[in-house]
């Protein structure tokens, strides 16, 4: 117990305010990391991810009509409050006749990053139909 407290105290002395300091370079790097994933999502969104040569952008150019700002929301067709990722999987299974993605997969996160990027600036509207 004593050792741990001492360790934390030393850490605080050595690196003051470490938690909330970041540089412009950090911001640039973090944005670049995001954009890398977003661009991967853009590619996936414009690829034939299922079995029938259909891609997401065929119904949703620039991810329009996906309304990411409204999730989670009640989907009457699913009979429950659903997330955007669940709806992405619904599209993969139905119009694209493919397999759903694990909800925490890199591909799913990339798709979400692209869809929300195209909707940037829109106020959150959870639950809105």
């Amino acid at each position, binding site marked *: 117990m004593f050792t741990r407290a001492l360790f934390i105290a030393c850490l605080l002395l050595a690196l003051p305010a470490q938690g909330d300091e970041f540089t412009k370079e950090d911001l640039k790097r973090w944005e670049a990391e995001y954009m890398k994933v977003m661009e991967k999502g853009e590619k996936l969104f414009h690829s034939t991810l299922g079995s029938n040569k259909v891609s997401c952008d065929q*119904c*949703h*150019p*620039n991810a329009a009509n996906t309304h990411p700002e409204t999730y989670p929301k009640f989907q009457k*067709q699913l009979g429950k409050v659903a997330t955007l990722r669940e709806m992405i999987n619904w*599209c993969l299974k139905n119009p694209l006749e493919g397999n759903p993605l694990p909800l925490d997969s890199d591909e799913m996160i990339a798709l979400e990053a692209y869809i929300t990027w195209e909707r940037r600036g829109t106020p959150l509207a959870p639950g809105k139909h």
Partner: protein
Amino acid sequence: MKRRNFLKGVGLAGLGATLPFSLVEVVWGLGSKPAEHESFTFAYISDSHLTHIQGARFTQNFDQGLRKAILEVNLMNPPPDFVIYGGDLAQLGKREELDHGLELLSGLKPPLKWVIGEHDFYLDMGEYWQDKISPLYYSFDHKGVHFVVLNSILTYQDWIKKWSTPMERMLNMARLDNPQGSPFMVGEAQLRWLKEDLAKYERNVPLVVLSHSPLYKIFKPWNFWTDDAEGVQKLLQRFHRVTVLHGHVHQVLYNQIGNITFYAMMATAWPWPYPVSYVQKPNQVPKLTVFMNRADPFHQRDGTGWDILDLENGTLTNHYQLWMNENRTVAFDFKLEHPVDRNYQDPEKRIPPQFHY
């Protein structure tokens, strides 16, 4: 009863698809000679985007859309005088896709007139289409009405030449939201041809122009756009009334610019969103249009359909045949001088699904 109220009354009572002839005569009498032609009906099927997967496999969803339209047109009684196919029969311009479309459309009873779309064109620059299907631009007369078909999906030579293979070019044109895309145009040669073609006609001839892209400017990032639209409009200006029918946008859309009435035709494959629902770029979506209902993705055919068009007194009544949805009728209003939705034009009458965001 004022004429305007009477018109509304006709719509509400649903006294059929066309305006009473007597009323129309009165309006045409205001200074110009009435257009003389026999009334008739034609149908319009468009944007089926038949997609070849492998071997004998095609994307079922899109096949079903075209099959349904063909079935329903064949049930029309009396049958339409002819059917316009509005372009984008294929998804990637492949012979397999165009042949498959021809096979399906061979079951259609009325004769067909063809308009080419960019998805039919950019693999082989329209070669197979011209060889097996139709010329790319032409005109014809029917019961006193002059029809002109334009190939409005041409684009700049630099863009055409920049791709290493025909399929790369096709894929880049097929992607609607492609930042590397290129705007559609009719081009100088066709404008010259159009001018000559129209020179033979009096200003009061009923005129219908058929193109794949809208012959006005709505949203450049998705090519809801024709770069030299003004050049075409200028040649149409001397006519009393002109109607332009186009495909490509996969949605209910109508507009009036001067003497020209514009109608978009439904797609059988899938609906495109309205550009107002993409928030990053400004758009010029016509304020006149009452939007179609937001499509329910859980109903595969929702947001798709085809059109029945009644041509009377030089103007059209457009019956949008909307699957999984209430049909919509949009007709030219002689008092307001623009097209009007029979039920929903009044902003107070609009319903929640018509709001897109």
